[in-house]
């Protein structure tokens, strides 16, 4: 599971984004160079023919927010994670091109026991941490104890809570030999391997864990990753130098330098002025305007911009109403108008990167007449006034998509109003599940692991145990989702989930909106950017064209 975690700083960024970028767009238009049309580049795509990687150079980047001093795997601030992803590594990571799936990193291979409760990993040999400590099974076990064992003297209580999302079902880690470890699960979890891609499952040096107190260890970021964090000037700059002993070949770049705290407007200006080499995220308007001068690149997994309908609300309790709302959405218009073509209309809850993706799924094409007929059948022929909740900041494009939903629903007679809340306040409420006050809440999810449907839509995941915040329940779907978890054959699992998905799509517990990936802008000289687990692209193979 991989969620686009926005945290504190996006709140500020997006607050400014609203008026700042609008102002910038108006002012900058005559000054920006319109040039040749460049197509989007996929992260991890091979270098252009004839391009030979060159060693050296500094990649100047903007850091979203201002990190604290604790850059450890057990932090959850966006800025800290971005820095930590270059320093630390885990057993596995996603595919460098699609940003989905699983590839081995510090594990060479793994096996799952037939009952799905023991994961055995063979570790990569010859890997060392930045402080020359060898990476062995002891490091894996010690890192686990630091986060999960209250009896250990290395136990970091905050880390336990932060890593709960990964290790909720993990009982213990057993060292079989120096290069073999076993994760024992309390119950069967066929998708545990996907969770190990997350920042909380990366490894810090055992020497650091032993040398410092649990709270202080994070201030000494030592991992096995391609870059070492060598300079932290609070609020000014953060420098990562190439780790020459990196097991997968030292990076081509000499260093990465991050400037923290720039809002989106200032970041775009800094890119235009040549002070930055790339932006990991930019507004679709900016990308559209600058794509001749800079190269857009997609990275990370595909997300579904999710609208969770409240199946307990008197209005959206009726399946005909939920279907009508889905028929009323003009997704193609959003893709062109809001996303400038960099998105796809959604056809179901899971994105095209879902391992059990069903290409035959039709979803809900735009059909306002059918929407009106369904609403009339449900007794809402003369229209209705309802409320939904939406964040003012922190969810990308919340305002634009929120307004588009409003406009589309108005055409079928629904007068939709929003309770707009600040990001933190919004999620504090939405996390508890929707109340009868609102017909929906919004968020966005990646779905590149099989248990996604169960995680999102089974009754067992109603709050407070999970994120089924619209209280969706269908007994047959639940039965299939449970059967899917119990099935060990992947192909059979996929078939089961596809059956469950058809039921879910028919029940329409969400508004299926659009699938999109994160998209950045880079200067022409930056080559070979790969996808990483979350929050940042991977620059371990990046080089600068001279």
């Amino acid at each position, binding site marked *: 599971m991989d969620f686009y975690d926005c945290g504190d700083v996006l709140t500020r960024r997006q607050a400014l984004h609203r008026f700042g970028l609008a102002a910038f767009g108006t002012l900058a238009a005559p000054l920006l160079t319109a040039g040749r049309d460049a197509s989007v580049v996929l992260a991890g795509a091979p270098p252009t023919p004839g391009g030979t990687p060159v060693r050296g150079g500094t990649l100047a980047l903007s850091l979203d927010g201002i990190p604290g001093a604790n850059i450890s795997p057990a932090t959850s601030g966006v800025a800290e994670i971005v820095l930590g992803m270059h320093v630390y590594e885990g057993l596995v990571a996603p595919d460098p091109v699609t940003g989905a799936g699983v590839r081995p990193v510090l594990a060479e291979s793994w096996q799952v026991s037939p009952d799905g409760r023991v994961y055995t990993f063979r570790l990569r040999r010859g890997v060392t941490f930045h402080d020359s400590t060898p990476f062995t099974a002891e490091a894996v076990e010690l890192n686990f104890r630091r986060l999960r064992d209250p009896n250990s003297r290395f136990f970091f209580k905050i880390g336990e809570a932060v890593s*709960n999302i990964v290790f909720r079902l993990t009982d213990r880690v057993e060292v079989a030999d120096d290069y073999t470890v076993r994760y024992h699960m309390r119950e069967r979890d066929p998708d545990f391997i996907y969770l190990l891609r997350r920042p909380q499952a990366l490894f810090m040096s055992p020497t650091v864990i032993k040398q410092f107190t649990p709270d202080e260890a994070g201030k000494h970021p030592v991992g096995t990753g391609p870059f070492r964090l060598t300079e932290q000037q609070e609020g000014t700059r953060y420098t990562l130098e190439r780790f020459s002993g990196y097991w997968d070949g030292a990076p081509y770049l000499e260093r990465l330098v991050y400037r923290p705290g720039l809002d989106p407007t200032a970041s775009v200006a800094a890119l235009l002025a040549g002070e930055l080499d790339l932006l990991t995220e930019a507004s679709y308007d900016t990308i559209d305007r600058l794509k001749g001068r800079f190269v857009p690149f997609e990275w990370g997994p595909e997300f579904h911009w999710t609208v969770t309908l409240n199946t307990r609300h008197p209005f959206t309790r009726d399946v005909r109403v939920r279907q009508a709302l889905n028929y009323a959405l003009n997704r193609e218009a959003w893709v062109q108008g809001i996303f400038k073509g960099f998105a796809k209309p959604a056809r179901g809850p899971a994105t095209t990167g879902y391992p059990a993706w069903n290409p035959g799924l039709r979803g809900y094409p735009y059909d306002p007449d059918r929407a009106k007929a369904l609403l009339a059948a449900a007794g809402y022929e003369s229209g209705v006034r309802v409320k939904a909740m939406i964040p003012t900041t922190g969810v990308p494009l919340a305002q634009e998509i929120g307004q588009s939903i409003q406009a589309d629903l108005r055409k079928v007679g629904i007068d939709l109003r929003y309770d707009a809340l600040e990001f*933190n306040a919004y999620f504090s409420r939405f*996390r508890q599940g929707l109340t009868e006050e609102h017909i929906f809440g919004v968020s966005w999810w990646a779905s590149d692991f099989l248990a996604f449907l169960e995680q999102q839509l089974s009754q067992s995941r109603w709050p*407070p145990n999970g994120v089924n915040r619209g209280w969706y329940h269908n007994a047959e779907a639940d039965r299939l989702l449970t059967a899917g978890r119990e099935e060990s054959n992947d192909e059979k699992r996929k078939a089961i989930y596809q059956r469950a998905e058809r039921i879910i799509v028919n029940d329409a517990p969400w508004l299926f909106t659009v699938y999109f990936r994160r998209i950045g802008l880079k200067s022409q000289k930056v080559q070979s950017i790969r996808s990483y687990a979350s929050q940042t692209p991977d620059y371990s193979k990046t080089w600068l064209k001279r």
Partner: protein
Amino acid sequence: MRRYVAVRILSTLPVLVGISVLVFALVKAVPGDPASALLGPEATPQDVAMLRDALGLEKPLPMQYALWLKKALAADLGRSIQKRVPVTDLLFSRLRNTVMLTVTAMAFALALGLPAGVLAARRAGSALDRATMVVALFGNSMPVFWLGILLILVFSVHLGWFPTGGTASLREGPSFGNTLRHLILPSLALGLVTVGGLARLTRSAMLEIVGQDYIRTARAKGLSQYRTIWYHALKNAAVPIVTIVGAQFGFLLGGAVLTETVFGWTGIGLLIYEGIATRDLPVVLGGVLFVALAFVIVNLVTDLMYGYLDPRIRYG
């Protein structure tokens, strides 16, 4: 005088405690909490409860406040929940940037606002006066983020004279020149929005003074226009000007959030803003108390300056 200063400083203590109670209550009253902010949207209510417990947020509110106050009285403002570092460290690391920005912005404001106000007063009613006041009003009304973006666009992106933001260049090592280049645009933006008010106030104070008998006397005894205005009139007009400068100075120390955000200038205003967004109570409390203290000190200095400017004012 010493007694006066000591009493003034001691009298700020209850004010600071009062502010801390208010800020504590306000941050706690706002929906959302630091555990929720730390874990992000994917976490379940169970995860949030676990982290709240780990952070000590499950303790009763009065107890949380009492624990904080006890430490604060020993000059320990606690640790940032989000950043896991002492709040005093964060404040000190940002203090340099905030002071630099404020002082330079005020220098810009004084260098432009005072002469403009004096000039307008000397030519009261003329086209020059009206033009100066229109420009001043324009500057006063201009939103600082808009002005900041405009300055970045023209002087950084188009002309390439100054960096677009940040406090130092990423491609060269830290140096005084490096910092200075980054300081000019944000302090200009901040200074320009202060110029308007300062020019208008200087003008009205000067107009009131130049009609006084002693100015007429100064002119009658043959003093030059320059000496009359700059030595006699301006010094007497200085009391209200110093008052507004003092108030502005205190405001700028903590209130330059938008300028700091637009230019990525990491100061205390931005720190408080980050703290509010993540409900990082120790950071908000520490930051606000710092700003309150700065206000008190600047006001005290302003009061003491009255005595210098007007010998009739004495403190006992």
